[in-house]
Every structure is written in structure tokens, then in C-alpha cells.
């Protein structure tokens, strides 16, 4: 849709679908206000700059009944407060479309709102910790820089009490996530990374409180409020950054699922009327939410099937790319089953509704995915495995130190134990992994791979086999124009067409643009814009055959199958061509003016390089496919790697692919899967690491660990390399944290470590870890920039 140009008006079916009160309820994002107004979320499309947000806000504000509008450009969403009695959703969508953008009711808005509340709370915790830290630092700096007699003891005590009051909000509110994390791990009998953090914070606070209250005999003279607040602020900052990055990816995925709700024609004839007599029965256009099993509905060409059902009259071709990721239409006739969400391409058919909503095949696959996710092989973070032994070692050392000092100088024994606990504060340890993983995720995002689960980077580093799906993953998602037949010559369009052949291609594309058939869309995608586009009149489409139209000079052209365009039912001129464009007329010599187009699947241009790169870093590759073996082998032969790619499975169902994956996993291999269709989703969920292409089914993307943008397969070997580098950095960071502890624990045990030195040590160790993590971004993408084609950012 060109921004600025009004889109075609909403059809009656779309208006009925939008005005369904159920839909309004689904996109409501908050409680009803006192005067009856409700907040509602809309998804938007077509925005490409910040000014678009202003235009859309202006258009929506003019609809009567709308109280307030806020458009967020970065996430392509609008939040409105409106009076449901006065405004209908169709009016809002029409208003947005009138200024040249798209809009739909945002069913995901409620989930997004819940996440927003969580985000806000995290940010407030961070702000509380940060501001308290700043004030406590200010007070304790005076204590640090003062000489022995500069500050009278009363003022000193007042300073300690002030710091104590300021640390209370941090302990009670900001540290909540750490304590709840440690507690829930404890209930499971495990020690997570939160446990040493929680123990360290608690120890620091208890001891500092004791010192403030005057028990300096046992606990030493110094309070640790500044170290405590600084530590908490660092950790919360890291968590906040991580949650922001995750939220971005989640929102970009949700916007993919935005579609206008449809209405469908339901037969009003009672059940006693036979299926064959339905043709003349009356129909009513109803929204989808009122359908029930047993209803008979008429699905027009270009509409999506509203539910799983059986065709009871008519025959057509169906686009099931929603499920299989493959856009090649499949024929369906009377008695055959169709799946909810697939698109009717050929002719209007009557269909009996069998399964709706939660019972559809789509939903069953979703459930299969969720099941596979819960059984996924567990993978603890490296740092978590260190947390347990580390914690025990620290506790034992602290106890030993206290015991030893009982003999030497009992007044210092507890203080020494406390120093040990505080100085081994796991600042570096708890930042070691997250900092490296976040930095790796940032480097990957700049190169066109979105990371949805940071933990998956650890798993990806040890992957030794990658399974690729064929259709849509290794091959381009749409059919490609392979050859053109023109005046007896077979031309290769990749070499560039000229003259008459190019004119014919553009003429065919301009006519094909008026059709929804995937073959037509492939032609349009290939031809692009440009050239002289004739204005077509008297356009008609014959289902399953082709299109016919009259151009400005009065010549009738036909685009479609050979029988349709050339009139020849036998002795096809060139059997490979799927689509012919030919002028119609009495003069049969004009048959020579015909052009034939052959379309087929084509392997992506970068597939060979990507697979070769994977082989070079020691990762094995194989192909899984639901297509027949002969076709798979023929296509795989187009990939030039040595030795040739192994076909692990052909004609495989989703369950079959899952079986191949499980066999490989049980053989001890760490397997990553790259896929795009919904029937890949169970395999993606069960694999150790999963990649989805952003051109594929949204469900596959919502379950995958990594999303490859723009279909650039080169992102897969890049992700593996960066993951391995990230794990290297994590190990370096852990070594650094261990070295720091090795040096500081003896110093603390011997009583040489004052708290200010411990604070500096903590800061330096954390800084060292963070700087080391930043090296990932610098070294890997110098000179290898793949500009992202993701259009989410405004």
C-alpha cells in the first residue's frame, strides 16, 4: 500500500467482522473508566517514518467518540480511549485506511499490557536502587575522605542512620526479584545464580544495620550500604536492558499476526435442505465468532477458510502455506478436508464447518509445540553450575576464618567472616554470563539475526549438526521465474530480458497483479514495476484456468494455463511452462505472439555459501523435507558444497521430522534446526537450538530461539561463530572472577581488607567483565555488516 494513497474501502464482510462486539472485547486493553470509555489497542502497518504517527493520530482523533489517541511509531501500535456506544471499529479502520495506512484490532494488546506493567515495575525498582545509591554514595564519600578526627561521632552515627534509611527501599523493594528467585530455587532444592546474590545482599545489610546500631565490637566499624546499593543497581540495570531487548523482539513478532477479522456467508437453509441444493439458498454474512460446527458456509475466492471443514459443493485450489510454508496451491474437491486459515484460490465453494477455534489442526500443532517445549532437554547456564560449589566454598571459608580468629583475636572473628562474605560478593560472577550474552545478542542483531532466548546462545556454541527444512528455508519462499519462452526461443530471465520479451513479461505481470493466485503473485514479484502498463478493461478471472482482459487497443489477452490461453489441449508447445500470455483473435498466426513462463522453486542464492561456511566451522548439515525424495535431491543438487548435502528425510510428516531429530539427539549430537512453516514448529521446539526465517509462518517464529531476517541464510553460520566467541568470553570472565576471589579471600581472612577496598575491588571486577564482553561486538562484525531489512523501526 502506498502511504498517502487511500486503500480500497472496506468490504461489507470486513465491516461485519470488525463490528462484532467480541472483537472489540478482544482488543480492549484495560478496565472500563467511570464514564464508560474503554481503552482499545490497534495494530498499524505501512508506517515508515515518525510523521506517519502524527498523520494517523490526526485521522483517528477526527472520528467522533474517540477521546484520546496515542500512536507508538517504534512498535506500530495505537492506543485509543473511546466510547464504545458511539464508535465502531470499522470506522476506525476506515479512518486509518483513508490516509493510506493499514489498521487491525490488536488482539495481543492485552498480553502486551500485562508485560508493560512488569516492565514498569522493573524500571521503578532500578530507579529506586539507582537514586538511593547516589545519595548513599554522597554520604559515605564524606566518611571515606575524612581524617580520624574530622567528623564527630554523633554526626558519624547520623550518617550511618541516614544511609540505613536510604537502603531500606532498596532492600525491601528493589531486591525483590533476587530474594524471590533464590527462594523459589531453594524450594526446588537447587542453588541458582540468585542464591549467592541474595545471601551476599542479606549479609551486607544485616551487618551494616548492626554496625549502625552500635555493635561495632562484633561486626567491625564499617557499614557497607554503598557497596550494597551499587551492587543492586548494577544487577538491575543488566536485567532491565535484557528485558527491553526481549520486549522489542516479542512485539515485532506479535505485529506479524495482525489481520482483519473476516465475516463469512452462512447458509440460512435449515439442515433438511440437501447439500446439492444449497446453491440458491439465502445466506447471511456473519462474523466468525458465531459459527458453530455443522454450519454450512460459502467461502469466496480469495477468502480464508474460517474453520476446519469439508467441502460439500464445488472444487477449487487452496493455498496451505499457513501450515506447510509452501505456496504451491493444492487442489481440493467435494468430500476433501480443508484447514482453517488456508486461502481459497480458485472458485467459491460450500463448506461444512467441522472444527472451530481450539479444535482446529492449527491449534493441535500449537499444542504439540507447547508439549515439546516442556520436554525440551534442560540446559543450565554455565554460571549457574558454578554458583553452588562457589557458595559452599565461600560459606566454609568464612566459617573457618571466624573459627581461626577466635583464637587470635576474638573481637574480630565475626568481622572477618563478614568481610569474606562481602568481598566474594558475586558481582563479577553474576555479570559474567549475562554481559557476554547480551553483547553477543547485540552483535547478532546488527547482522540480521534476532535472539529471542539468550540462553540458547550457550547451547548454540556446542551445536555440531544443523538440520535444514527445504521448502521456504533453503528455497526462496515464492516460486521463481525460471525460463521464458518467446517466439520459439527459451530465454533465461536472470540474464535480463529485452525488447518484446520484456514487454510481454511486464504485460503479463500487470494483468497478474489483479489476481491472488500465488503463480500470479510470483510473476508480479519477479517483474517488479516499470514499463508501460496497459490499462485493462473487462477483466475476468476463470477459476483454475486464468484471466482475460481487454487492453487499450481492443485486443483481448488471456493469461493462464496453456488450454486457456492458447486454446491447445494437446501437443503443448512447451510443457515446462505453467503460465501463458497470448492475444486472442481470429488470426491464429497470433499464436506466435504468445509468451510462456516457467516457474519453479529455486534454491536461495546464499545457500551454498552458508552451508559451506557451516562445514568450515565443523558443523554437519542435512536436509529434512515433506516433499518427495526425487524433488528434494534435484533441488539439493543445486547447492554447491563438497561433499554434497545429505538428505536426512523426505516425504516426512511433522511427526516424522521429529523422529529424525530425536534419533540424532539420542546419538549424542547437539542439533540445531532451521525452518519456516508451522509444520516445522514441533521440530523447532524440540531441537537444542532453533532458527526461524522471518518470511515464514508467524507460529514458527514465535517458538524459535533465533530469527533470521530477510531470509539471509548466512546468519546461521554467523550465529554459531558469535555464540562460540561469547562462550569463550564467558569462560574468560569466570576465570577473571575466580582470580579476583583467589586474591581477595586470603586478604580478607588475614584481616587486611577494609570495606572501601572491597568496594573498589567489586567495581573493578565488574567493569573488567563488562569491558571484556564488549569485545564480542567489536571483533566479529568489522567489515561484515549485513544491513537488516527488518522494517520494524520507524
Amino acid at each position, binding site marked *: 500500500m502506498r502511504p498517502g494513497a487511500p486503500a480500497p474501502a472496506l468490504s461489507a464482510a470486513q465491516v461485519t467482522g470488525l463490528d462484532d462486539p467480541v472483537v472489540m472485547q478482544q482488543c480492549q486493553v484495560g478496565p472500563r473508566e467511570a464514564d464508560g470509555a474503554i481503552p482499545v489497542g490497534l495494530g498499524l502497518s505501512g508506517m515508515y517514518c*515518525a*510523521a506517519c*504517527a*502524527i498523520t494517523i*493520530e490526526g485521522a483517528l482523533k477526527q472520528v467522533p467518540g474517540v477521546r484520546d489517541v496515542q500512536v*507508538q*511509531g*517504534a*512498535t506500530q501500535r495505537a492506543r485509543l480511549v473511546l466510547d464504545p456506544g458511539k464508535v465502531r471499529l470499522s470506522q476506525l479502520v476506515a479512518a486509518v485506511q483513508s490516509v493510506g495506512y493499514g489498521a487491525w484490532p490488536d488482539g495481543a494488546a492485552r498480553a502486551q499490557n500485562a508485560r*508493560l506493567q512488569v*516492565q*514498569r515495575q522493573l*524500571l*521503578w525498582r532500578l*530507579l*529506586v536502587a539507582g*537514586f*538511593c545509591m547516589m*545519595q548513599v554514595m*554522597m*554520604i559515605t564519600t564524606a566518611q571515606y575522605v575524612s581524617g580520624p578526627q574530622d*567528623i*564527630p561521632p554523633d*554526626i558519624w552515627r*547520623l*550518617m550511618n542512620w*541516614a544511609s540505613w*534509611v*536510604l537502603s531500606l*527501599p532498596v532492600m525491601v523493594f528493589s531486591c525483590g526479584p533476587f530474594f524471590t528467585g533464590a527462594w523459589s530455587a531453594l524450594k526446588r532444592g537447587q542453588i541458582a545464580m540468585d542464591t549467592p546474590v541474595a545471601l551476599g545482599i542479606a549479609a551486607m545489610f544485616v551487618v551494616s544495620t548492626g554496625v549502625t546500631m552500635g555493635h561495632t565490637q562484633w561486626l567491625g566499624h564499617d557499614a557497607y550500604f554503598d557497596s550494597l546499593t551499587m551492587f543492586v543497581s548494577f544487577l538491575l540495570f543488566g536485567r532491565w536492558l535484557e528485558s527491553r531487548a526481549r520486549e522489542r523482539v516479542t512485539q515485532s513478532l506479535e505485529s506479524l499476526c495482525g489481520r482483519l477479522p473476516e465475516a463469512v456467508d452462512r447458509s440460512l437453509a435449515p439442515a433438511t435442505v440437501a447439500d446439492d441444493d444449497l446453491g440458491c439458498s439465502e445466506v447471511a454474512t456473519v462474523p466468525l465468532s458465531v459459527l458453530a460446527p455443522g454450519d454450512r458456509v460459502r467461502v469466496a475466492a480469495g477468502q480464508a477458510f474460517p474453520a476446519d471443514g469439508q467441502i460439500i459443493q464445488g472444487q477449487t485450489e487452496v493455498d496451505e502455506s499457513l501450515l506447510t510454508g509452501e505456496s504451491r496451491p493444492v487442489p481440493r474437491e467435494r468430500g476433501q478436508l480443508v484447514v482453517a486459515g488456508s486461502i481459497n484460490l480458485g472458485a467459491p465453494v460450500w463448506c461444512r464447518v467441522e472444527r472451530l477455534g481450539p479444535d482446529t489442526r492449527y491449534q493441535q500443532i500449537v499444542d504439540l509445540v507447547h508439549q515439546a517445549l516442556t520436554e525440551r532437554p534442560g540446559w543450565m547456564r554455565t554460571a549457574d553450575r558454578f554458583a553452588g560449589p562457589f557458595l559452599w566454598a565461600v560459606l566454609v571459608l568464612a566459617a573457618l576464618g571466624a573459627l581461626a580468629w577466635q583464637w587470635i583475636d576474638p573481637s574480630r572473628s565475626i568481622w572477618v567472616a563478614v568481610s569474606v562474605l562481602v568481598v566474594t560478593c558475586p558481582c563479577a560472577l553474576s555479570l559474567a554470563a549475562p554481559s557476554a550474552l547480551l553483547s553477543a545478542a547485540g552483535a547478532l542483531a546488527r547482522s540480521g539475526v534476532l535472539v529471542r532466548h539468550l540462553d540458547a546462545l550457550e547451547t548454540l556454541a556446542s551445536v555440531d549438526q544443523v538440520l535444514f527444512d527445504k521448502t521456504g528455508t533453503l528455497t526462496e519462499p515464492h516460486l521463481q521465474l525460471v525460463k521464458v519462452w518467446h517466439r520459439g526461443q527459451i530465454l533465461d530471465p536472470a540474464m535480463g530480458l529485452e525488447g518484446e520479451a520484456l514487454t510481454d513479461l511486464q504485460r503479463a505481470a500487470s494483468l497478474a497483479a489483479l489476481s491472488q493466485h500465488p503463480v500470479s503473485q510470483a510473476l508480479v514479484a519477479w517483474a517488479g514495476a516499470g514499463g508501460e502498463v496497459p490499462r485493462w478493461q473487462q477483466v475476468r478471472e476463470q477459476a483454475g484456468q486464468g484471466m482475460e482482459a481487454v487492453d487499450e487497443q481492443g485486443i483481448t489477452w488471456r493469461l493462464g494455463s496453456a488450454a486457456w490461453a492458447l486454446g491447445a489441449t494437446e501437443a503443448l508447445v512447451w510443457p515446462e511452462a505453467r503460465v501463458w500470455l497470448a492475444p486472442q483473435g481470429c488470426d491464429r498466426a497470433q499464436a506466435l505472439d504468445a509468451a510462456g513462463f516457467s516457474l519453479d522453486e529455486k534454491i536461495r542464492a546464499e545457500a551454498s555459501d552458508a552451508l559451506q561456511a557451516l562445514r568450515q566451522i565443523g558443523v554437519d548439515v542435512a536436509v529434512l523435507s515433506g516433499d518427495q525424495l526425487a524433488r528434494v535431491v534435484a533441488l539439493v543438487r543445486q547447492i554447491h558444497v563438497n561433499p554434497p548435502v545429505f538428505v536426512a528425510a523426505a516425504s516426512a510428516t511433522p511427526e516424522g521430522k521429529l523422529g529424525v531429530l530425536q534419533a540424532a539427539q539420542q546419538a549424542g549430537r547437539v542439533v540445531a534446526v532451521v525452518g519456516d512453516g508451522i509444520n516445522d514448529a514441533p521440530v523447532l521446539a524440540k531441537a537444542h537450538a532453533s532458527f526461524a526465517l522471518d518470511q515464514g509462518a508467524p507460529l514458527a517464529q514465535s517458538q524459535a530461539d533465533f530469527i533470521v531476517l530477510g531470509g539471509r541464510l548466512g546468519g546461521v553460520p554467523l550465529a554459531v561463530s558469535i555464540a562460540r566467541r561469547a562462550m569463550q568470553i564467558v569462560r574468560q570472565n569466570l576465570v577473571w572472577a575466580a582470580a579476583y576471589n583467589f586474591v581477595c579471600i586470603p586478604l580478607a581472612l588475614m584481616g587486611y581488607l577494609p570495606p572501601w577496598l572491597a568496594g573498589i575491588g567489586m567495581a573493578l571486577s565488574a567493569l573488567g567483565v563488562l569491558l571484556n564482553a564488549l569485545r564480542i561486538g567489536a571483533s566479529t562484525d568489522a567489515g561484515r555488516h549485513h544491513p537488516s531489512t527488518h522494517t520494524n523501526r*520507524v
Partner: protein
Amino acid sequence: MDILYLLLPLSVVLVLLILGVLGWSVYRGQFDNLDQEGVRILEEDEQDP
């Protein structure tokens, strides 16, 4: 130095007030969409007669 008996508690109270203001602004949604804030100057002001 006696003034510190006033200033220290005052600064604590001030920080607590600031925390309250920050919480109010966070929950009012002022930090939800930081990218959009830079665009706000481009919006046309509504003319009130």
C-alpha cells in the same frame, strides 16, 4: 557542623520524595516509549480559541 543535623534528614526526605515522583511518572507511562518522545516537538499544537 551542627547544620548537618538538619541537612542529613532533609536530604533523606528529599530522596524519598524524588522516588515517589519517579514512581508516579513511571506508572503514568512517561517512560514506556522513549523513542517517541523526540518526535513530540513535530506535533502540531491544537489551537485553542
